[in-house]
């Protein structure tokens, strides 16, 4: 990297194949590990906004328990339930089908849990349980057509090979068939490389715009069914209040519904700690949403009374994140707090405060950063 400005390098890297673009040098190539086993580790905030594509080795890892890694040679994706012809598709069978790709954000529903107040139990994710990657595989809809999907199926039940210890409930999930037939992918590649074991090899589900709990890793069975899956990970966990309540007051199950689409959100990933009056100081960040596009990102230096538009990065894809930057011109000396706010293509605006919930899902309050401005 010597002799090349960071910006120059990023521009050069943007032209290279995503998986081989490695602008982040080894000392900074790290994950923040929350849990030794099962592995839970997030990407440091300052690395999130450096590249449009999150490299595989810096992508957050979230395991519910020590995984059972399938043997790709004998692995098969079983398709049963409301289908004419139950199937067992090998990796070779999948690779022989028409390919589909999506570049989009995968975010853990609990990303930002540590920022909720009052504090809630669970993995204390801050910012980096999210990443943007190019996922390649086959369309769920093509697999279901191959099996002959019957009318009447409304939900896709999904199963992975990871098994919990003893009495712990299994991580069995389902999601609306309409959504997964629209743009769901069974992915066996991540950023042009074979899907890493830690991320669900040989194949995982990709559900653009929806929270990570739907993206079943080590996927080995899909089953269209008339009704939704039941169990702890459907009926108790991964549910979000239908209406905001009083922070700290626990919601009852019928006051909540399953988490699905991500909430509109921006983060500030880079900001200078100090600046001078009359000299531009550039802050950078990321923004994404469960809507296909981010329409704008704005920055305020007066707590949200007035806003100025940030510049959105060139790279964008449906349900991917958008890099952004903002050249702030300090007008007066002293401590200045900048806040950012994203607006998506459906008009949803990132709120000042997140909706508190006892599981700590979907934290998306305005991010802020403090800059010491001197004369």
């Amino acid at each position: 990297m010597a002799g090349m400005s960071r910006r120059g390098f990023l521009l050069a890297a943007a032209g290279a194949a995503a998986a081989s673009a490695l602008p982040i040098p080894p000392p900074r190539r790290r994950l923040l590990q929350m849990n030794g086993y099962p592995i839970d580790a997030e990407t440091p905030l300052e690395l999130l906004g450096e590249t449009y594509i999150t490299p595989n080795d810096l992508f957050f890892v979230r395991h519910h328990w020590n995984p059972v890694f399938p043997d790709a040679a004998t692995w098969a994706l079983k398709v049963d339930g409301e289908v004419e012809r139950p199937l067992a598709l090998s990796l070779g069978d999948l690779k022989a089908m028409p390919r589909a790709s999506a570049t989009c954000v995968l975010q853990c529903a609990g990303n930002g849990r540590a920022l909720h107040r009052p504090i809630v139990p669970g993995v204390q994710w801050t910012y980096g349980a999210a990443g943007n990657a190019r996922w390649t595989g086959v369309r769920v809809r093509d697999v279901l057509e191959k099996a002959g999907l019957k009318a009447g199926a409304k939900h896709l039940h999904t199963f992975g090979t990871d098994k919990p210890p003893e009495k712990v409930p299994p991580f069995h999930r389902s999601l609306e068939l309409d959504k997964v037939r629209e743009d769901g992918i069974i992915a066996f590649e991540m950023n042009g490389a074979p899907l890493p074991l830690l991320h669900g090899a040989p194949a995982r589900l990709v559900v653009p715009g929806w929270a990570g709990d739907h993206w079943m890793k080590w996927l080995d069975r899909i089953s269209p069914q008339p009704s939704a899956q039941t169990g702890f990970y459907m009926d108790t966990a991964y549910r979000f209040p239908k209406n905001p309540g009083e922070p700290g007051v626990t919601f009852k199950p019928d006051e909540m519904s399953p988490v699905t689409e991500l909430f509109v959100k921006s983060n500030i990933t880079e900001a200078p700690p100090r600046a001078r009056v009359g000299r531009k100081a550039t802050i950078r960040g990321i923004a994404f949403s469960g809507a296909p596009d981010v329409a704008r990102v704005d920055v305020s230096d007066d707590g949200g009374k007035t806003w100025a538009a940030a510049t959105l990065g060139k790279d964008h894809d449906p349900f991917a994140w958008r890099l952004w930057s903002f050249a702030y011109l300090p007008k007066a000396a002293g401590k200045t707090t900048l806040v950012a706010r994203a607006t998506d293509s459906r008009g949803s605006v990132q709120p000042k405060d997140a909706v508190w919930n006892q599981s700590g899902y979907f934290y998306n309050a305005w991010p802020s950063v403090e800059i010491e401005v001197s004369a």
Partner: protein
Amino acid sequence: MRLSRSLAAAFGAVIGGALLLGQAAPEAARETPPPPLGTELGELPAGAMKPLADQACLHCHSADMIRQQRLTEKQWTAEVAKMVGWGAVVPEDQRAALVAYLLEHFGPDNDRFRPVAAQPVGK
């Protein structure tokens, strides 16, 4: 039963070792390398309840999962009840003492946990 712990440690050692071979960059060599992903960051604090907590909790997850929590007595009581329901073996007459131990070390003012920078893995 420590099978899950040793498996996790072996897994961490394998991927960590592979990384050390592949990433011997001069910049990285100057600083102490962070532990490989999958290394337990710390253990539960000493105390009369430590053996019980180790036995009841660490079969399924590392001590890190507990060390990062900052919970009230009510929340710890609920967590322990949930985990007992999921198979954690805590004798009924020791549940209150276990909750007290967790609250003492990992109550709302707990700010000792720092996620370490772990070597990333790509494969």
